[in-house]
């Protein structure tokens, strides 16, 4: 057991650090949740891709570097430590791409992954529906067979990035009246500017249009844009869901960088005798370090041929609660300045604490609420009996 990087990993980290130092914009890009900011972030993806930094863990043929899991973790640590922009392409890279690698056709991979890696096509996810949030299998939007493809009809909601994105992916009910709600679903991809698609942006808690509602009225999808077998969408999607909850969505680098910024804030403006705040800053540091090490242990397990199952639920609960505690502490530390919006004249330096706080509040809700994650932990990891059903 050790924590020493191999020579190759150390060289990879050094190269990433040097590139980021040379390229990360000196002033933050405008908010990702505005049209202008979206375009700026898309341009940043193009810049990353030009030097093969946008999808480091992918094979070189699709624009990646065949990075190992440890290299990917190192890249993420450097990325967040450098204060680099948020990833507008993350829905595609983290959710759709793993599914295409596992269940897509060679044609799909050849056609879709390249433009995803360069930011030419930005993807939105279209999982949830008004009546199907945590209970994803309850979805009602349909895909009806038609000549050469499918017609989508229904409503999707809380579709992140959809306000400005190009294409979306999601599950649709292609076989009505199946015995169990998970059956008869099909995984499809569709353009957001296709005839029949209406995109209505929805404001996040702070008013920024981080999601949209999608109204689908006989939207045609060719057979080529079905992933896996029709009717097998649930199984296909679950590999993606595993990714979302597991290693890839919230890389430890994000939290170690945030904890470092919080510590710097505390050293600069905190009252060193205020032990109540000191304890909370220390807990953020300890939590970020624990998450980083836990992830390294999991990565080691995967590198040794293991897999992650319900263990990813431990990650989800931990990082989401850490993220809130960390930002809540920062706001308390900032006192009257902590409640200012990030674009206010007197807003504090050292990162977007108010936006980060607002964003953190969503953590226990999306990608499977923490209530559901705790059920999974209790039933699958501890072996406790299932709840009584109504």
């Amino acid at each position: 057991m050790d924590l020493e990087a191999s020579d190759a990993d150390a060289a990879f980290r050094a190269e990433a650090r040097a590139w980021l130092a040379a390229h990360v914009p000196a002033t933050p890009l405008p908010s990702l949740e505005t049209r202008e900011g979206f375009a700026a972030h898309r341009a940043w993806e193009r810049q990353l891709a030009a030097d093969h930094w946008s999808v480091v863990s992918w094979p070189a043929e699709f624009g990646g570097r065949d990075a190992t899991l440890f290299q990917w973790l190192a890249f993420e640590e450097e990325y967040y430590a450098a204060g680099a922009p948020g990833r507008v392409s993350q829905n595609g890279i983290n959710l759709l791409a793993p599914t295409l690698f596992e269940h897509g056709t060679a044609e799909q991979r050849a056609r879709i992954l390249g433009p995803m890696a360069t930011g030419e096509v930005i993807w939105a996810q279209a999982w949830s529906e008004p009546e199907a949030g945590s209970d994803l299998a309850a979805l009602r939007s349909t895909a009806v067979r038609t000549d050469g493809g499918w017609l989508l009809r229904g409503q999707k909601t809380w579709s992140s990035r959809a306000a400005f994105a190009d294409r979306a992916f999601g599950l649709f009910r292609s076989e009505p009246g199946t015995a169990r709600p998970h059956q008869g679903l099909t995984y499809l991809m569709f353009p957001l500017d296709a005839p029949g698609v209406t995109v209505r942006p929805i404001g996040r808690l702070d008013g920024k249009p981080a999601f949209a509602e999608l109204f689908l009225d006989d939207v045609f999808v060719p057979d080529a844009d079905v992933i896996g077998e029709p009717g097998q969408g649930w199984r296909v999607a679950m590999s993606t869901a595993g990714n979302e909850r597991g290693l890839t969505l919230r890389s430890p680098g994000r939290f170690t960088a945030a904890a470092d910024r919080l510590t710097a804030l505390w050293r600069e403006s905190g009252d060193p005798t205020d032990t109540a705040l000191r304890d909370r800053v220390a807990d953020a540091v300890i939590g970020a370090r624990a998450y980083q090490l836990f992830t390294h242990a999991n990565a080691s397990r995967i590198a040794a041929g293991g897999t992650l199952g319900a263990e990813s639920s431990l990650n989800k609960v931990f990082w989401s609660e850490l993220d809130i505690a960390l930002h809540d502490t920062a706001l308390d530390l900032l006192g009257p300045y902590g409640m200012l919006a990030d674009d206010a004249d007197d807003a504090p330096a050292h990162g977007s604490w108010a936006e980060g706080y607002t964003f953190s509040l969503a953590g226990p809700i999306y990608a499977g609420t923490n209530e559901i994650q705790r059920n999974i932990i209790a039933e699958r990891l501890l072996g406790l009996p299932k709840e009584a059903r109504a």
Partner: protein
Amino acid sequence: MPFLLTEEQRDFARTLDALLGAADTATAVRAWAAGEHKPGRALWTRLAETGVFALAVPEEHDGMGPLPLELAVAFVELGRHAVPGPLVETVAAAAFLDRLGDAGAATDWLPRIAAGDAVIGLCADGAPFALDADAADTVLVVGGDTVCRTETHGPVQATLDPARRVSRPLGGTVLARGPAVTAAAGHAVDLARLLTAAQALGLGRALLTGTVDYVRQRTQFGRAIGSFQAVKHRLADVLIGLEFAQPLVHAAALALAGDAPSAGADVAAAKVAAGEACYAAARAALQLHGAVGYTDEPDLSLWIRKARPLRDAWGTPAACRARVLAG
């Protein structure tokens, strides 16, 4: 010693609740957040008609106060309905002017406050910002033993609560100086703290009620989500927090009304309990509404976003805890 609101006090609360429930305060809040104060000012006028502002003003200036307990009762309802604007500041400014002993200033402002015609900003207790200075007729700024008034301010800045916009007061002319200022400001800060606690209590009640209604009707996995034990226990804890904050608010109002030596500590205790209970209510409301709660479309989001700034306004929990032990 019946430690219960009188029938009259409860009637007053019910009247305000009914008035505000019919007044579409959410629309006024959204307008206020956009810098459009008209619907909010219209609400103030209607509140003045019920006598809310007069409770802070003595009879010789057209009021019927000062009545801290009745004010607290009223502010629970203002918080429940998320009424926008520097309500606390205006009422605390009235208390300040009443105690200052400057007959001119009192005569100038107190009748207008009682009538709901004056919106006053108040910047004291070391706060760097004034709330809603752009909506105020004047802003009083207390520093040390001096109070100034000003009608100019720096850029208006948004906060986590969009209807709570702050700015730095600029310039100003000295209104008074000396120990009377310090004493009047101390009382005004205590009153502001009490009424902020009362607002938080009402806001928390509204958040709990809205969330209970939601989890009773929202189904997932074939069950109302309110039947899940994790949901039930979390809401039970929210109720416990609010129920035990309420008597602290009432007792602090009594202490302030009686100028009791313990009033400062009593008010601080009420502020800690009500502020934390309200914040817990908002966090539960957000989590249990799920993604719905995280969007700005339901009115609920307006209530959720008020909780944290209100918890910290006029004394953070840490400052208030220190005050409790200072006795």
